[in-house]
């Protein structure tokens, strides 16, 4: 009788320990991330761009169809340039308040505020990025886990199909799919998601294969757990780290590919703003020296992608057990 009560009383203590271990691991990962300067820069850029992407459409109700002000055609970003030159030359020039700051990033060929359009374009790019990665992650993981765990014909059929998709350079496949399906943002998202599925499928399949022969999975099997429940409760949690790293890096790729499709006229259709489309429209203006039409959308894409790439790299360093203890 006394032994039974002992075991019962020790039960909650064990649970607490396991939670403690998880908390400790999480804290350890966060500490590693914080120590890494590229994680801090990447994290800042990622958080900042996500915040802007959420806030801009909420605060500013933008009607691109009516946005047209030919009197402000190719208005240069005087305000910003004036401020920068006065900073660099260290002379007291025209104070900021006296300059016209209606167009901080200048205006484009239709006299549209570039800053406003960059804000909305960023929002489009990031939403597409998250949507693409979300879809390809879900479908890819489902395919990969099924292939790795069920093996047999499921594995060969699904993995050969993934090979076929991988046989195409991803941008080319996306271009071809959108061309035939019709140029639109939605078709672009679907096409990019299709090209990204194999990466997640292969990754999760290899995780499933390496985990399916471990002792704890065998133990779960021996007590009668089914394939599906093992996948959900054992394989998936243990594949999370590499999947998170891959998803972060793929987000950058998705943002670039979306902009590339937009640049080729296969993404968001005018007059709605999208960073790649804005860049394509800026090319004719470049020859006459109107750099601002190109610079601001270009810099925005670079900063978003750089942010997620820095974060992804740092996450890999923090999560990869092989690198632990080496620093």
């Amino acid at each position: 009788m006394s032994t039974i009560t002992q075991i019962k009383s020790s039960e909650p203590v064990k649970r607490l320990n396991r939670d403690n271990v998880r908390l400790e691991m999480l804290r350890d990962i966060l500490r590693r991330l914080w120590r890494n300067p590229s994680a801090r820069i990447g994290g800042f850029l990622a958080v900042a761009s996500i915040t802007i992407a959420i806030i801009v459409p909420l605060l500013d109700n933008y009607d691109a169809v009516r946005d047209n002000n030919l009197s402000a055609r190719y208005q240069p970003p005087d305000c910003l340039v004036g401020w920068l030159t006065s900073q660099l030359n260290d002379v007291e020039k025209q104070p900021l308040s006296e300059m016209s700051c209606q167009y901080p990033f200048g205006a484009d060929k239709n006299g549209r505020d570039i800053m406003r359009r960059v804000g909305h374009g960023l929002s489009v790019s990031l939403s597409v990025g998250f949507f693409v990665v979300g879809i390809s992650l879900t479908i890819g993981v489902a395919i990969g886990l099924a292939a790795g765990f069920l093996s047999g014909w499921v594995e060969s059929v699904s993995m050969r199909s993934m090979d076929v998709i991988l046989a195409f350079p991803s941008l080319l496949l996306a271009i071809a799919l959108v061309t035939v399906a019709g140029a639109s943002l939605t078709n672009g998202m679907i096409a990019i998601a299709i090209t990204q599925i194999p990466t997640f499928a292969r990754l999760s399949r290899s995780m499933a294969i390496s985990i399916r022969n471990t002792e704890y999975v065998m133990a779960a099997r021996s007590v009668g757990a089914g394939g599906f429940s093992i996948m959900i409760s054992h394989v998936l949690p243990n594949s999370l780290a590499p999947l998170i790293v891959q998803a972060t890096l793929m987000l950058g790729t998705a943002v670039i590919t979306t902009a590339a499709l937009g640049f080729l006229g296969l993404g968001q259709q005018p007059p709605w703003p999208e960073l790649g489309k804005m860049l394509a429209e800026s090319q004719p203006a470049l020859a006459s020296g109107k750099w601002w039409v190109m610079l601001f959308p270009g810099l925005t894409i670079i900063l978003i992608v750089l942010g997620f790439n820095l974060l992804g790299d740092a996450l890999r360093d923090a999560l990869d057990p092989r690198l632990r203890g080496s620093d």
Partner: protein
Amino acid sequence: MSKYIIRRALESIPVIIGVSILVFMLLRLIPGDPAIAILGERATPENIAAIRERLGLNKPLPEQYIIWIGNLLQGDLGNTVRGNIPIANELRSRFPATIELSLVAITLATVIGVPMGIFSAVRRNSPVDTATMFGALLGVSVPIFVLGLLLIYLFGVQLKLLPFIGRIDSGIKLETRTGLFVIDSILTGNWEALQNTLSHLILPAITLFTVPLAIIARITRSSMLEVLNQDYIRTARAKGLGERPVIFSHALRNALLPIVTIIGLQLGTLLSGAVLTETIYSWPGIGKWLFDSIIARDYPIVQSVTLIVSLIYVIINFTVDILYALVDPRIRVA
């Protein structure tokens, strides 16, 4: 070894068949009637019927596929919708421009990227290493079209140093033999053309080579770092070998495998990156042609370019695998 090559070749057959089916289906995936999509809503019924006949759209799908593959094997990619020109001929005349650009880009990326990676690995955690690795990260984060536009603005518009449209000035005459203008101008001893075509190559090549450069530098660094930790490197150092032979004849030789692989794979990716670069610089290769046919809704061209580039990609992957096995016997057995 031949056993491995045969096995690997057999493995790529289903992939090639899958690729061909997917590309074949592209034209048939067009929502609604492909003939109307190509000709526009105002096309006459006679024209629509003619296009359907020409593209073979009025036969059952499997039959269409067999006819398509049959023609393909004879080198017949069909004709363009506009102009009714054989696609294969057109492809042949535009391909050298893309090949020339891609070869220059991959050569530059290798020649600069590998030493950068080695240097970074040898001086691990030094400021040079940090700078190189940040540069490499920036290289993969800056989209091709942003970099292209920046370069056009800086070197083309502002400094007026370099041309940024086309392959060669229209006033310069060049007798073409191979279609690779650099080689052609050397073969014919046309130095004016050589100088002109080289100056046209600089901006597009830099635009195209940054991503492979960054990736090659990163892979070289990590591959070198792995090798430099091995026991035989310590042994080589312990027996008094200088740092130079240790790095170049012991470490680099063993680190080469992943580097060779990534260079091969990047060549395939370059061919699709060429779509953006060629569009920006009006470079008359297959990438620009693909872009123009997207705009003109000339779907058979889109289909053919997609097919050819993916087949090249598959062949490069296959070759890289074979090279890999040739150098590393362990691959053959596994």
